[in-house]
C-alpha cells in the first residue's frame, strides 16, 4: 500500500482521474483528522480542500520521501494550526444550524469509522489533550506507523511513544469497563 504515491505519479504525468482516486482514498480521513483540531466539520472540509489544492498548485514539492498520506496530513495539520492561530472571533450560530453541524459530524464519523470500537474511542478522545488526541487518531484511526505519526506531529518517536502510553492510560480511565474490553 503506497497511500496514493502511485496515483500521484500518474496525476503528475497528466492523468487527472488519478487525482480523484487520491481524493476518494484520503479526503475523509484528512477532514476527520483536521476536525480534531478545529472542532468544526465545515472548516475542516475547507482546510482539507485547501490542502489538496496545494498538491495541485505546488506539484513538485512532494518528493516521495514520505507517503502521500503522511505528506497531506502534515500540510493539513499546519493549515489547521494556522487557522486556530488566526481565528479571532468565536462564531455564534443559531441552534438549528448547530443541530445541522452536529448531524454533519455524525455523518463524517459514520463514513470514517465503520468499527464500533473506534466509535467508542472517538467519543472519549474529545476529552484528551490535543497532542494525545492527534497521536491516537493517527496511529489508531489512520493506521500509521509511529515514525509517520512523529513526522506529522513534528515530534520524535520517543515522544510519540510516551504520548501514546499516557493516552491509552487516560482512555482506560475514561472508558471504564468498556476500556478494559478494548
Amino acid at each position: 500500500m503506497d497511500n496514493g504515491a502511485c496515483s500521484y505519479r500518474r496525476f503528475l504525468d497528466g492523468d487527472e482521474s488519478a487525482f480523484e482516486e487520491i481524493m476518494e482514498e484520503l479526503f475523509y480521513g484528512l477532514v476527520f483528522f483536521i476536525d480534531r483540531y478545529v472542532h468544526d466539520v465545515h472548516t475542516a472540509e475547507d482546510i482539507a480542500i485547501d490542502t489538496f489544492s496545494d498538491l495541485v498548485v505546488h506539484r513538485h514539492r512532494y518528493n516521495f520521501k514520505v507517503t502521500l498520506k503522511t505528506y497531506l496530513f502534515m500540510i493539513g495539520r499546519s493549515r489547521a494550526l494556522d487557522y486556530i492561530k488566526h481565528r479571532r472571533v468565536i462564531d455564534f450560530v443559531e441552534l438549528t444550524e448547530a443541530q445541522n453541524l452536529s448531524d454533519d459530524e455524525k455523518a463524517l464519523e459514520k463514513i470514517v469509522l465503520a468499527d464500533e470500537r473506534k466509535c467508542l474511542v472517538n467519543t472519549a478522545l474529545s476529552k484528551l489533550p490535543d497532542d494525545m488526541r492527534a497521536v491516537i487518531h493517527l496511529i489508531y484511526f489512520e493506521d500509521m506507523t509511529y515514525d509517520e505519526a512523529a513526522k506529522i506531529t513534528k515530534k520524535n518517536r520517543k515522544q510519540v511513544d510516551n504520548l501514546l502510553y499516557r493516552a491509552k492510560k487516560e482512555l482506560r480511565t475514561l472508558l471504564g469497563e468498556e476500556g478494559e474490553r478494548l
Partner: protein
Amino acid sequence: MMKEMQEYTAEVFRRSEKRIKERRRVRNRVLSLCIPLCLTVALCSVMLLPTLQPIGPDGALDQVPADQPSQETAPENAVGGTGSFVSVIIKGFSVGSDGTQAITDPDQVTSVHRVVLNLYKEAPTGTPEDSPDEDPMIPPGDAFEDYQNGSSADCPEYTIIFTSSDGANATYILKGYKLCDVNNAVDIQLSDMQLKELKTVCGLTE
C-alpha cells in the same frame, strides 16, 4: 450535509486554478515594477559615475595612474599655485658647497614651479636608470641605492622654497633622486632625466 466526492474534487481544482492565476498576476506585477526600476538604477549610475571621479587642476577628470607606488598626486593644492609665486630660493648642501641661490625672475619662477608640478604628475614607477658615470657626484658601486633614495650621507641636498606674494611658502627638498614636498608630505623618486631637468631649471648643474 456532506457533499459528493465529485463536488469536493471540483472545488479543489477550482481553488487551485484561482491560486495559480493569482500567483501569475503577482509575478507579473513584480516584474512590471522591477524591470523599470533596474533600468532606472542602471541609467542613473551610468550618468552619475563620471561626476563622482575627482577633477584634476586642469579641469579634466583626474586619472591617477595605477602603477604609481605611493601617494604621488600632483601638489595642485600647493600654496600659492603656479602663477602666484614671486621668488624661489634654492639652498644647496652638497659636499664642499654651502650656497644659496635666489630666482626672482617671474618667468623663471613659473618655469621652476611648473617643472616641479609636472614631476609629481609624471613620477616614474621604476628605479632610476643606472648611469652613475653621468653625474660625478654619484658614488659608484653599493652606495648607489642609498644615493637614489636620499639616505646616503654623501647625497647633495637642496632645499627649494617658493614664496608667494602674500608671504606663504611651498618647500621642497631634493636629496639624491628623492624629491619631498614638505607642505603636503609627498615624496617622489625621480628618474635621471627628471633630475637633470630639475637641476637645469634650478641652475644646479655643475
